[in-house]
């Protein structure tokens, strides 16, 4: 062998090969993988519950004046998940109202009952669609932002730095985001309801329902109880989104790829949590006959 190649070969063999026991790929059967997935999903659910519990403890510290965070952080988050979310919430809610009215009108016209488009849009928006669509928008927008921000802080050792300066990262990062989103969600929901009803009204006026008539019909159909159901749910959905986003951020690994994964998981978890909670509320409201 030529000398120059032998030199390189010696270099390559100078350090013994690392045994890869730690990083062996899974060689599980289909059933094994299913079992592993089940165990992991259950562990994920337990972790969500645990994080929620920690959030409650942190809130107790906040209300007893023992939790500290920067007020600037809180106001900034309030702006990000409030005012800055208005354009996208407006667009989606308007279109949802529009679509509902269109679809409803096509069916109801057969019965000469197209005035009930107002009832359909009004009730659907305030009871379900306003709050659910807002929650899904906020999951993708704010939940993802929380996860990405906290995740990169973790990857950059910023959370460790908070700890070694005696700040509780939970109080410092999760609390302002949770409180801001829980405060803003009801407002966004009310706004979304109004914009959605306006969308329906626009379609209504095109298909020959006068605006005044549409408005009166909506007011008659949507009572205060129905209207407050959506707003009531929005508080819980907001908390679920904030907890999912912050939890995935806090649990992110230390590389940029893992921050990306954490963001994806945050959005998936937030949307799942919102839909599961909404189903639970649907059952509860039916049982309570509201």
């Amino acid at each position: 062998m030529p000398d120059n190649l032998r030199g390189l070969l010696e270099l390559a063999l100078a350090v013994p090969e690392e045994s890869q026991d730690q990083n062996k790929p899974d060689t599980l059967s289909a059933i094994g993988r299913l079992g592993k997935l089940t165990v992991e999903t259950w562990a994920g659910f337990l972790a969500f519950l645990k994080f929620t519990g920690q959030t409650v403890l942190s809130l107790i510290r906040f209300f007893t004046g023992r939790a500290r965070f920067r007020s600037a952080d809180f106001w900034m988050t309030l702006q990000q998940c409030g005012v800055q979310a208005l354009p996208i919430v407006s667009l989606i809610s308007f279109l949802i109202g529009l679509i509902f009215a269109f679809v409803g009108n096509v069916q109801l016209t057969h019965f000469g009952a197209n005035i009930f488009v107002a009832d359909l849009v009004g009730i659907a928006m305030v009871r379900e669609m306003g709050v659910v669509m807002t929650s899904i928008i906020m999951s993708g927008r704010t939940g993802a932002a929380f996860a990405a921000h906290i995740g990169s802080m973790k990857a950059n050792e910023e959370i460790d730095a908070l700890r070694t300066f005696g700040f509780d990262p939970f109080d410092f990062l999760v609390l302002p985001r949770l409180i801001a989103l829980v405060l803003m969600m009801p407002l966004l929901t009310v706004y979304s309801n109004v914009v959605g009803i306006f969308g329906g009204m626009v379609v209504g006026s095109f298909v020959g329902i006068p605006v005044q008539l549409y408005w009166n019909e909506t007011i008659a159909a949507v009572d205060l109880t129905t209207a407050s159901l959506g707003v009531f749910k929005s508080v819980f959905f907001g908390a679920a989104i904030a907890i999912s986003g912050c939890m995935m951020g806090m649990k992110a690994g230390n590389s940029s790829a893992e921050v990306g994964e954490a963001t994806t998981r945050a959005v998936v978890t937030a949307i799942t949590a919102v839909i599961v909670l909404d189903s639970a509320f649907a059952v509860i409201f039916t049982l309570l006959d509201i």
Partner: protein
Amino acid sequence: MAAKITVHGLTMSYGTLEVMHDLEFEILDKDIFVIMGGSGCGKSTLLRHLVGLMEPTKGSILYGDKDFTATDPADRGPFIRRFGVMYQSGALWSSLTLGENISMPLEEAGIVSAKTVKDLVSYKLSLVGLSGFEDYYPSQISGGMKKRAGLARALALDPDILFLDEPGAGLDPLSSRRLDDLILRLRDSQGCTVVIVTHELASIFGIANTALFLDTATRTQGAVGNPADLRDHSDNPAVRLFLNRGETPAKTS
């Protein structure tokens, strides 16, 4: 002299993967103590254990005569208040300016006068050669500057024990030298104990009183002692090899 930090039978692991076992050493008051070893041997992990970011699998860490590891993490405030920690990447809070990065711990410590906070911030930044950078965000400055700003933040509360994770890595030789001088001067003027994780031989021989060598092969400490002594007289060939940059001079006794 009294031991400031005593590490007794410390075993560290990530899950089931053992990083180092049975570490046994003392760090004396006002010492400049270097933790050295090859890349990935667990130097930074040891530092994370010392400041309470990770819990040991076995063994204990004592500050003075108080057991740090036996104290509940929630009650470690009195220990942590004496620490200043500088992270490998600087770990500056990226949404805050350099000034705010330093003022936040100051305000947390109860310094309320805005004038005092401002003066202290300028003073700490000037110590590391960053005067006038108060309003810059971490993303606007270079890697070396981030490191120095991280040191300024670690110094914010005049720590009793300063932990530095690879302070010289990625710095040019002059900046690295200036940083070493700064560390020496801080020790002499403020009387703090300094624990440094590094593998820069120039720094190790330049400023360290005591050095601890972590041996990757045996997963435990290779030697502890004065770096120059270890280089020339250590019984452990791995230590002599490391401190001589891979040259293997005969052991001088």
